[in-house]
């Protein structure tokens, strides 16, 4: 009896002990997040990315062909002056779940590019028009050339960028993200926020020569890329009716959305196929689980367990 009592006390004590332990844990982690010493490096990005709604997010998401085509035009007209897109081939632009260009369009698009090939029988390199199987050519022949043209900074290849940036989400968001499937929007949100986030540095903040202040940049408070977009810089083919309100706006905001969506496609070209197959598989598995569950009940019906 006495022992029982002691045990009761002990378990009560235990609960309090655990509670205390976790309280200390939470408090001190909060504290260490809150009072950063003045000289510590601040946490980048300074501002969290905007959360946009994308056509491709969620379990039924798919790419918006028109948006991807506009995005490609922006890449083609602007970004490709500095950034390569090495992993994308012209033929990929014909993917029906992606930009959906026809075989003819792809062919003529590729032919607009000069591709270096060779060596030929004489041992010389030569240039020829692009073919659908070629990859998009890079703007610079090598890293050194790219750096020297960009004040020492290297414009990264954009093929995977939409999956290669994930600003920290922190607790408890990273738990919710499993269910909201936010992970897929994180990259495009980041690129959009970066492209629209160039601004004058706040008073007292010095920005080094050749850098451009941007609180959304993941690695610092300024980056070497000059603001690449300006209102009206890229002409979109419009639908031709006279009603201007039907037109796609030619604004930095719209450009940033479109090119971000395009880069998500470039990073994950099979996204739509994946989600489509996912739905089939999920429906199959759930029905199958129901059948197996029913069978299991029958098998165990007369065996209390």
């Amino acid at each position, binding site marked *: 009896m006495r*022992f*029982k009592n002691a*045990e009761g006390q002990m*378990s009560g004590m*235990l*609960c309090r002990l*655990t509670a205390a*332990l*976790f309280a*200390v*844990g939470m*408090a*001190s*982690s*909060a*504290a*260490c997040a809150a009072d950063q010493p003045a000289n510590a490096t601040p946490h*980048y990005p300074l501002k969290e990315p905007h959360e946009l709604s994308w056509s491709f997010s969620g379990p039924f998401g798919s790419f918006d062909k028109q948006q991807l085509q506009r995005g490609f035009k922006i890449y083609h007209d602007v970004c490709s002056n500095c950034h390569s897109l090495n*992993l994308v081939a012209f033929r*990929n632009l014909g993917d029906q779940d992606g930009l959906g260009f026809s075989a003819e369009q792809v062919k003529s698009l590729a032919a607009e590019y000069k591709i270096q090939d060779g060596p030929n029988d004489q041992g010389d390199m030569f240039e020829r028009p692009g073919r659908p199987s070629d990859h998009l050519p890079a703007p610079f022949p090598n890293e050194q050339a790219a750096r020297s043209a960009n004040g020492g900074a290297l414009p*990264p290849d954009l*093929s*995977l960028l939409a*999956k*290669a940036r*994930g600003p920290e989400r922190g*607790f408890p968001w990273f738990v919710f*993200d*499993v269910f909201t*499937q936010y*992970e*897929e929007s*994180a*990259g495009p949100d980041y690129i959009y926020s970066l492209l629209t986030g160039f601004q004058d540095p706040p008073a007292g903040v010095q920005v080094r020569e050749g850098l451009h202040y941007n609180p959304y940049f993941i*690695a610092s408070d300024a980056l070497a890329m000059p603001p690449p977009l300006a209102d009206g810089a890229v002409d979109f083919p419009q639908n031709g009716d006279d009603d201007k309100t039907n037109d796609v706006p030619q604004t930095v905001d719209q450009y940033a959305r479109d090119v971000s969506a395009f880069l998500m496609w470039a*990073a994950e*070209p*099979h996204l739509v*196929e*994946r*989600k489509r*197959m*996912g*739905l089939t*598989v*999920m429906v199959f*598995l*759930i029905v*199958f*689980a129901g059948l*197996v*569950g029913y*069978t*299991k009940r029958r*098998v*165990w019906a*007369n*065996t*209390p*367990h």
Partner: protein
Amino acid sequence: MAEHTSTYEPRTGIERWVDARLPLPRLLWDSFVTYPIPRNLNYAYTFGAILMMMLGAQIITGVVLAMHYVPSGTMAFVSVEAIMRDVNYGWLLRYMHATGASMFFIAVYVHIFRGLYYGSYKEPREILWLLGVIIFILMMATAFMGYVLPWGQMSFWGATVITNLFSAIPLVGSAIVTWLWGGFAVGSPTLNRFFALHYLLPFMIAGVVVLHVWALHVVGQTNPTGINIKAKQDAVPFTPHATIKDALGMVVFMIVFAYFLFYVPNYLGHSDNYIQANPLATPSEIVPEWYFLPFYAILRSIPSKLGGVIAMFGAIVMLALMPWLDTSKVRSAVYRPLYRQFFWIHVLVSIGLGYIGSQPPAGGFIIVGRILTAYYFIHFLVIVPLLGLLETPKPRPASITEAVLEKHGRGLALPERTVSNTKVGG
């Protein structure tokens, strides 16, 4: 079980011919059809089957991926992207393999904690348990080397940090590290040998799994009561009872797996791994895969490098020592009111360590990390041995059947069918 004798009867001439030469069908029949299992197993016990499924899935997807993968510093990253883009269903294979590794660890952690809860390590299952610990270690080695193969930034820097741990060994440390690397830094030779080992180890795991299952079939499964099978009505034949229950567990697990695979395939990885390895650019934070985070937290909680390495490996050794650290005569936590609470605290502490491992080692995180690390070892070295001596266990039922009937209300007689259903071999 010892009293389980073979009931296999070869029916055709061919079966008799085989049975007289290599009684493999008999072995399978006795192991997976008539083998008696406790009737009261719950779904926590389906994770063994789930793990078998995951090992199979990893090996199959892995072998196909290896047909397309190029283990060289210049080609690895691009070849993985070629799999993702150009190989038919390559994205499916690769995402299956990558999320599959995480699912494998989710399942193995449930399996291990189930063992800790129901006392599965206790006499006479010590060897069974030790084989499990060996599988766990092999799994961790395999997963670590697998994560290096895509040759992204986290691959490269993770490999650098972890292999560097060996330099903590006095005198020969740095020589060992150079030997592991095949050079003076992580590079192509390292990648190449990791690929060879990553291909080899899963087959070694499969071998140890065979021993693990063999040992299991010698001593029999535990069950939530922790009481051995004493009479025929305590058990049911493996098929159909366990077969169908395991199947249900596997299908439900596959739903979770499919969710991650199709909807959040990159959630469990690090975005930096989509940047090609660059020895000149260190990522701002180097974080291992989630399933290593508790061990990583322990490593970083000890101020000395050698101490940290010892503590990290010690954390796994603790598991191996469980059969001898636990002094309790009672197997299952169901009848151990105090151990049950400490068990759940231990689970929370392990998760807490995982969270600490994902955070930068600064300020409060260091302090909490140290407290949790200390607690982790205190749990194994002090609490578990003491509890066995101090705790008064709850009264236990006389048999599995009694426990089951108690649950379903006393006075409920065993239905006629049950008795015939539970006929066990022998």
